[in-house]
């Protein structure tokens, strides 16, 4: 609550960034880090040029090419964008990437282009470079900016008009959000992952449950998660309608950050640590809403429908739309089952898939690849299945290759790719064809999300790998 001596993590970060506050107006919030990619920025730069404005703080801005880039034919730094040797075959994609390069050069913004060792999905490279730090405000023209909240940063997605606003002013007018505590007590059982946890949370509160709120994930099960697991949980906050999700910084956070290229060092590290330790929510601080879950009751979750809240334990059957009391929920379920070509009562484990995708800003980190590889080691991808493994960044790809994970994937019959958003949203050539069905470690099972007419079941990396082996939705314990 504003004015209370006891404040939540979100309120502390907010208060520390208010440039200007006036009655009846949104607060003007300072932005510490602005991440850019090629899809949502070109019109913002055009706006700057039209008004003869500059980028106020290029030194707080960083760009990468992730949404459009192909995941094959990336030969290394300097891979050509044009000409017969370019892996980019779609001229419209090429124009968009060219626009980002031109804009970054003109306005003096650091860019990690296709083929660069630090290129990758914008939400994977921020934490990896140590730019994502506790207590920061971070924005990006991408709804999965919520990912960065895993390190205790207030991070949220914005539209292109807001991208232009941040470029020009390094601030954003924002209405103070409400706060929601999501407390997960107990311990996740063996074989249950951060992905299962966030799918269960979204199923519980719904796609609109977090609207207008910042979510703070708390409790023993959250504290026990690795940084990779926390990034997965915060990533999907937007799927529950919340622009931002947060986990309080702790020793896991500090150990993750120490020594990364942009993490403070020496005396600055000590000063930063002192500040970061003041950030966690005060005892006695009040949230506008509180939700609790018991981790011990969770099992692997998968989605059956066309929004991320339409999820159930893998050990369930496709629901009967008639079982939903709310008419809008019932209609949505009927539409979803028609689109997904599923019948009520079908066991989820009996659903056959032809495609498995491991990757994305949700599950494209090294820990996710290790988890998938540990299931695939010594096994084969079913002949009926095409499996794509797309690292979240080129650094993740390099690390996986040092650990020999690429050899496990290729020996199993999976495709080992370069970094990008890839089949999460099908803006590059990695897409589902009409009628194809995937088990995907990404974040959205919307109609056509992975390619027009494609059908998506959201799963964890472990379930994705087991599904690739059996050809139908499965957990590692089923093998």
């Amino acid at each position, binding site marked *: 609550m504003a004015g209370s001596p006891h404040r939540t993590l979100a309120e502390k970060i907010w208060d520390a960034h208010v440039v200007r506050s006036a009655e009846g107006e949104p607060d003007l919030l300072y932005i510490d880090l602005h991440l850019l990619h090629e899809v949502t920025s070109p019109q913002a730069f055009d706006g700057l040029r039209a008004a003869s404005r500059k980028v106020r703080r290029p030194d707080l801005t960083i760009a990468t090419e992730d949404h459009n880039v192909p995941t094959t034919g990336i030969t290394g730094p300097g891979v050509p964008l044009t000409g017969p040797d370019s892996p980019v075959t779609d001229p419209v994609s090429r124009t968009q990437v060219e626009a980002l390069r031109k804009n970054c050069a003109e306005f003096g913004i650091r860019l990690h282009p296709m083929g660069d060792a630090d290129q990758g999905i914008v939400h994977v490279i921020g934490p990896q470079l140590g730019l994502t730090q506790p207590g920061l405000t971070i924005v990006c023209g991408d709804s999965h900016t919520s990912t960065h909240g895993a390190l205790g940063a207030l991070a949220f997605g*914005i539209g292109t*008009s807001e991208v*232009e606003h941040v470029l020009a002013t390094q601030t954003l007018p924002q209405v103070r959000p409400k706060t929601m505590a999501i407390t997960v007590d107990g311990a996740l059982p063996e074989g249950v992952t951060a992905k299962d946890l966030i799918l269960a949370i979204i199923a519980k509160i719904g*796609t609109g449950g977090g609207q207008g709120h910042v979510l703070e994930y708390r409790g023993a099960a959250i504290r026990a998660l690795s940084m990779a697991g926390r990034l997965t949980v915060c990533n999907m906050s937007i799927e529950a309608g919340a622009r931002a999700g947060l986990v309080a910084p702790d020793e896991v956070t500090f150990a993750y950050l120490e020594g990364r290229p942009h993490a403070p060092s020496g005396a600055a590290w000590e000063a930063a640590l002192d500040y970061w330790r003041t950030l966690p929510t005060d005892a006695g601080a009040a949230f506008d809403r509180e939700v609790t879950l018991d981790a011990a009751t969770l099992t692997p979750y998968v989605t059956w429908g066309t929004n991320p809240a339409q999820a159930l334990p893998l050990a369930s059957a496709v629901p009967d739309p008639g079982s939903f009391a709310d008419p809008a929920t019932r209609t949505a379920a009927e539409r979803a089952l028609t689109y997904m070509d599923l019948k009520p009562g079908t066991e989820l484990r009996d659903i056959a898939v032809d495609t498995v995708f491991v990757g994305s800003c949700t599950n494209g980190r090294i820990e996710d690849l290790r988890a998938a590889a540990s299931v695939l080691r010594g096994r084969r991808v079913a002949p009926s299945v095409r499996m794509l493994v797309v690292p979240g960044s080129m650094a993740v790809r390099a690390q996986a290759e040092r650990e020999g994970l690429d050899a496990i994937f290729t020996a199993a019959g999976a495709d080992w790719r370069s970094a990008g958003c890839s089949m999460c949203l099908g803006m590059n050539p990695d897409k589902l064809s009409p009628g194809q069905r995937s088990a995907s470690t990404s974040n*959205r099972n919307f109609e056509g999300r992975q390619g027009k*007419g494609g059908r998506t079941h959201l799963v964890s990396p472990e379930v994705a790998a087991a599904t690739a082996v059996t050809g139908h939705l499965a957990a590692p314990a089923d093998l």
Partner: protein
Amino acid sequence: MEPFVSHSGRAVPLRRSNVDTDQIIPAEYLKRVSRTGFGQGLFAAWREDPSFVLNQPQYAGATILVAGADFGTGSSREHAVWALTDYGFRAVIAPRFGDIFRGNATKAGLLPVVLPEAAVTALQDAVEAEPATEVVVDLDNRVVVAEAAGIKAPFEIDDYTRWRLMEGLDDIGLTLRHVDDITAFEHSRPAFLPVTG
């Protein structure tokens, strides 16, 4: 931004909830580098179905979309707003909106109107019964009126957003009036904060 004071037009009912921005404009249409021309991608997959509501001739030329709850969830793509305005929509009425979509809409001159579920259903019923029903979205008086159908539904919108929309003001211009505050804030930032350069 084109000012929005009051708009009168015909409405089209979209009886679906959770209309995510991937449905409003699929990713394959996001590759343009301009702000124009996105109307052709509006609801691209759904418009392939001849019976989809936007393909029904009685709703041709409608400028107000009346949709189910949680309209505009998912991706932050402002292209969803540009697709709606490029197609000719000036307002969307729904019981709930995705937060990012709602913010984007008010930046691009598309008015998102939150009405209770019952009022949304009543409007949908009215325009289905008589597609020529005139609907007035009056931002000045914060009310949606369909006089012929006997509907008069007040809505809430904060004073600041209403003022900005009615004046058609550019947010950046407003913020730059306070550039000295921004500079002063920058001088107070701790030295340990990261820079990208």
